[in-house]
C-alpha cells in the first residue's frame, strides 16, 4: 500500500512525549485559513520552490526529460541552490515502517515514538493502518488529526494508535464552515466517541487571534472536551512563510497581535 508523504521530521518537539519522528501525510479536506503547512493541503504531488532565496536564474525552467519532473513545470535536478523540490514522496508502508524502525531504540529509551500528522492522515486511512500495524508493539504510535473523517474510518485508525491528538478548533458550526471550509458535525461525533473509547488522547485548540481565541469558543470547546485533557497551541506567526513556495496565498483575515 502506498501513501503520499510530504515530510518526515526527526526530533519533532511538539508532537508528543519523548523523542519522536513525525510523518506528515499529504492531503487535507479542511482549508483552515491559518494552516502553516500549505504543501500538505493538496492530495497530489506538487512542485515546491523556496522562493525567498530564488535568484530567478531560469535553469529549472529549461525542459528536461526526467520522468519525475514531468507535469511539475520545473526540473528538480538542476537548481544550484537546491531550492526546487517536489512536495509529496510516495512511500510503501513497509519501507516507511523500516525507515522509522531504524531509530526505534531512541524512541524506546526516551519514551518517544512516531507521530502521524498531515495534512489529514485519515485521508490516507488505509495506508495509515498498514503503517501503524507494522509499528505495533515496536514503537509508540501517536495520531494527530482534525477528526474530520467518517466515523468508521476514524475508529479504525484510532484503534491502531497508542495516543491521539485531536483538534477542536471551533465549536460553532457556521464559524467552522467559514474558517475551515467544512462543518464540524463529524468532528463532534468523533470527539464523543474518542472520549468514551478509553484511548489515551488530548484535545488541542490552535489559538488563532480573533477567530478561535474568543472566550465563548474556548468555553464551548471545554464543554465538548469535558474531563479529557486539553492543550492550547499558540498561533504560529511564521504560518504565511511557505505559501508562495506552493503558489498559494495566505489569508488576509488573520491579524496577529
Amino acid at each position, binding site marked *: 500500500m502506498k501513501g503520499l508523504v510530504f515530510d*518526515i*521530521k*526527526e*526530533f519533532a*518537539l*511538539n508532537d508528543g512525549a*519523548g*523523542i519522536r*519522528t513525525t510523518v506528515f501525510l499529504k492531503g487535507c479536506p479542511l482549508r483552515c485559513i491559518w494552516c502553516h503547512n500549505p504543501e500538505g493541503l493538496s492530495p497530489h504531488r506538487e512542485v515546491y520552490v523556496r522562493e525567498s532565496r530564488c535568484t530567478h536564474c531560469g*535553469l529549472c525552467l529549461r525542459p528536461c526529460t526526467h520522468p519525475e519532473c514531468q507535469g511539475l513545470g520545473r526540473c528538480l*535536478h*538542476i*537548481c*544550484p541552490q*537546491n531550492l526546487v523540490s517536489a512536495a509529496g514522496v510516495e512511500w510503501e508502508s513497509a519501507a516507511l515502517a523500516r525507515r522509522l524502525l*531504524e*531509530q526505534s531504540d*531512541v524512541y524506546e*529509551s*526516551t519514551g518517544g515514538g512516531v507521530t502521524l500528522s498531515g495534512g489529514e492522515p485519515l485521508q490516507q486511512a488505509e495506508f495509515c493502518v498498514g503503517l501503524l500495524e507494522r509499528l505495533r508493539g515496536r514503537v509508540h504510535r501517536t495520531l494527530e488529526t482534525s477528526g474530520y473523517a467518517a466515523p468508521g474510518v476514524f475508529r479504525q485508525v484510532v484503534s491502531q494508535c497508542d495516543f491521539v491528538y485531536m483538534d477542536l478548533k471551533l465549536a460553532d458550526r457556521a464559524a467552522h464552515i467559514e474558517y475551515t471550509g467544512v462543518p464540524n458535525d463529524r468532528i463532534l461525533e468523533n470527539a464523543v466517541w474518542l472520549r468514551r473509547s478509553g484511548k489515551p488522547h488530548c484535545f488541542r485548540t490552535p489559538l488563532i487571534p480573533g477567530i478561535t481565541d474568543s472566550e465563548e469558543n474556548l468555553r464551548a470547546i471545554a464543554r465538548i472536551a469535558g474531563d479529557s485533557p486539553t492543550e492550547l497551541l499558540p498561533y504560529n506567526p511564521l504560518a504565511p512563510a511557505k505559501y508562495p513556495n506552493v503558489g498559494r496565498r495566505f489569508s488576509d483575515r488573520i491579524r496577529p497581535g
Partner: protein
Amino acid sequence: MKRELYQYYIIDRAHHANRVECREPLAASYAALGLHARERMTRRFEFLCRAETPHMHPSEQIVLVRTVKQQPDIFTAEEWETLRRTHFIHEHGYVSNLSPDYGAAIQSGLLAVRARADGYGRRMIDALIGLCDRYRAEAERLGRDDVAAVLTQVPRYGARNFREALQMFRILHYALWLEGDYHNTVGRFDQYLYPYFRRDMEAGVYTREQALELLEDFFLSFNKDSDLYIGVQQGDNGQSMVLGGRLPDGSEGFNELSELCLLASRNLGLIDPKINLRVSARTPLSIYEKGTELTRVGLGFPQYSNDDVVIEGLTRLGYDYEDAVNYVVAACWEFIIPGVGNDVANIGAVNFPALTDRAIRRCLTQGGGTFPELLQAVQAEIRRECDRITGSIQDVWFVPSPFMDLLRDGKKYNNFGLHGSGIACAADALAAVERYVYQEKRVTPERLLHALDTDYADDPELLHLLRFEAPKMGTGNDRADALGGMLLDWFADALEGKRNCLGGVWRAGTGTAMYYLWHARELGATADGRRAGEPFGTNFSPSLFAQVPGPLTDVISFTKQNLIRAINGGPLTLEFAAGVFQNPESIRKVAMLVRYFIQRGGHQLQLNAVNLEAMREAQKHPERYRQLVVRIWGWSAYFVELDRDFQNHVMARQEYTV
C-alpha cells in the same frame, strides 16, 4: 551577578582606560647581551611584573588585571628567522594548549613551590609575589581589607578557603599569560577547587547565592584581558574548563561546584571560560539537562566528551589509566593530561578532501580501474601524507617556560596530535564516485574530470547530482558513513607505531580548527559537488550542503565509526534554532538526544543554539549586536568581531528547527 562589574568590564570595557603602551625593545637588548632563551623569558616576566600597575574595581572580589597592552617579544625578527630555519617552530613558538597542575600550587602556595624551583623559577616567583604585594598595598590604600587579607595569604602560602583558592588560581593563570604561554587551559576546576568550596559551604561561610556570586566574579576575570591574548580570532584563547567525569576511584566527579559553574556560565553569558562536560553512558539525564540549560543561552557550550571512549582511546595510545582518567581538553577539544602532559595536540593537520581528490583524479585519468583500487590509492595517499608530515616535524623547539614548568610534575607525555579536516567531504566524494562512476556508470570519468577542472561551470546537472542527491555522510547512508570510518581507520593505521622527535606517539583526530577554511581555500572543486574554495564542515560533522534528515540521523551517522583509534579530539556539531529550547520539555528532549549520542559511543559533541536572524541583522548593524555570541570551532566568539568568512561559515551550517 554584580551588574556593575559586568557593566564596567564587559559593556563599557572601562578598564581599558588604565592600559598603557609598551614599546620596550627587549629583544634587541637581550640579543645584544647574548642572553639565552630561559634568561630572556625570566627577564621579560620580571619586567612585565614591574610594569604592571595595580587596579581594582570597588566591588570585585577577585583581583589582577592586565594594564600593559603589549608583550614585547624576546627574540628579534632575525633571531626568529634563524630559529625557524634550524628548528620546527610550532605556531608562535611559545608553549600552548597545556594544562598545568593548578591544584598543587593552590594548596602549597608559591613559597613551597619556590623551595623546589631552579634559579629562574625562583626569580619569577619573586617577581610575581612582588606584583601581588603591590596589589595588596593598593587594596589597603583603597580600604579593601578583604582583598588585602586574601593577598596576605596567597600567593605566598596555600589557600585556606574558597575565595583564596579562586584568587590563587587567578594569580597563577595571569602569570602564565604574562609569561607568554598561550591557550592556557583551566582543567578539572570542579575537582581541584572542590575541597575549598565544600569546606566553606559546610562551615556556612557562604549561602549558595553568595558562592555563586563569588564564582561569577571569578568567571568574569577570564574575560578582562582576553582581547590581549593571541589566537586566530578573538575568543580563540584556550580557556577551557572541564567539569564532571570519572574520578580515579571510578566514582562520578560531577559535584555541587560543577553545577554552580554551569549556573555561573549561564548567568554571565560570556565566552570564557569555555565549559566542557565529561559524561559517560552512566551519566544521569539530570546532568545532561543542566548542560542543556547552558546550551540554551547560545554560547556553544558545554561541549560533551564521552569518558567511555576517550579514556579507552588514550590508554590504547599508551597513557597510564590514572592519567587518562584525569583527561581534560586543550584549547578546543584535544584531549590532554593535566600536570604531567607535554603533548602538542595540534601540531599539524591532514587535508582529507585534498588527498582523496588527488587519488580520484589520478585513477580516473588513468582509466579508472576498479573502485577498490581507487580506495587503495586513497589509503596510500593518506599513508604518504602522514609519512611526510611526521617526517617533516623534527627538531621541535619551544621557547622555554620557566613558570609553566613550576606547575608541572615532569613531562611524562610528549605525543603529537594531527587534525583531520574535511572527513565528511572526502567520504562524500568517494561515495559519489563509487555510485555514479563505478556502479551506475551514469557519469563518465571524462565528464567528472572536466567538471572538476572547470569548477562545474558548464555542468549544473552534475553539480546538482553530486552536491545534493549523492550519498553523504550524516544523512543515514551506510556506505558514506562507512567510507568516513575507513578514512579514520587508515589515518590511525598510518600513524600507528610512529615515534615523534620527542619520543612520543602520534595521535589521529577529527578536529579541523581553522583548516575547514584554510585547507578548503587551496582546494579546487571536488567530487562531492563542492566548488573550488568552498569550506568544509567543521570538525567531525556533515558537509555544509548535505541534506541531513534530522539530528537523529546525524547522531547515528557519526557514531558508526571507530573513534577510539582517532581520539585526538574534534566533535560532531549540532546546530539548533534557538526556538528549540523553548520549554523544560524540549530542554529535556535535547538532553535525551545528547545522552543517546553518548550511549551510542559518540566521542565528543557540541551543540549550538543559533539565531540566524540575529546574525543576519548583526552583519547589517554590528553596533547593535556587540554581545551576540556564536560558536566557531573549539571556541566561541562575539559575532561582530569575527572576519566575514568566519561569520558566513557559521550561518551556512545545517540548522535544526522546531
